[in-house]
């Protein structure tokens, strides 16, 4: 399978950013961004989507840790996806 070229990469990044901006604008409610999600999944390969999603989750986790979340005493964080 061929790798995505520069143009394809940029289209994928934009679809990714549009989706995650929608999620952010809707306070994390992904059900309001279904259309953008399907565009995102059609413009980026499955392995890239997985990679990007994991990174967003990790960054969220880091943010919550920085905000004082304690994994020992508090309820587990709900996964973002």
């Amino acid at each position, binding site marked *: *399978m061929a*790798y995505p070229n520069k143009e394809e990469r940029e289209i994928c990044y934009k679809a990714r950013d549009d989706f995650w901006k929608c999620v952010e604008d809707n306070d994390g409610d992904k059900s309001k961004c279904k259309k953008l999600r399907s565009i995102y999944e059609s413009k980026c390969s499955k392995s890239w989507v997985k990679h990007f999603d994991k990174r967003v989750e990790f960054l969220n986790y880091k943010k919550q840790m920085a905000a004082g979340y304690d994994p020992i005493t508090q309820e587990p964080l709900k996964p973002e996806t």
Partner: protein
Amino acid sequence: MVKQEVKALSGKAAIGGPWSLVDFNGELKTSKDFHGKWILVYFGFTHCPDICPEELEKIAEVVDEIDDNPNVPNLTPLFITVDPDRDTIGAMKEYLKEFSQKVIGFTGTSDQIDNVCKAFRVYYSKGPLDEDGDYIVDHTIITYLVGPDGNFVQYYGQNVEAPEFTKSVIEKMKTYKPHYDK
């Protein structure tokens, strides 16, 4: 203080070293072919989602800055794949063309890639195959500066931006003392 210095020197000797790979024109090359030149060595793969393209753009910017500077020697950027199964010489050539005409792509057998990664202490690991048979290769994101004697000089992480990177390379070039005793 003295202890620290010794540590830095021994670390220097251990990174890099001789390698042999196939360049994107299909020619077998070794580290010796680059003796006499300042080189940047970066590891990545053409199916890389976002980090490799960002790093390659940064490297292209640094190299152009250095090459335009009349007071320092030119810099040759090398891109070595950590995904030799998919990154054929043709794929490497097409891929790198989009970043810079100066970057030389390298691939090789799994053993050749293993060896050069070990020499530069680059970790890489192929991720699980997804439904499309596609995968991502997790790898160390470090760019290495190697001097004309073939010895490692400095490394740059992902967090180092192009201006700071360029400044450091210029400084290293200006204060460079070769060690040809190897």
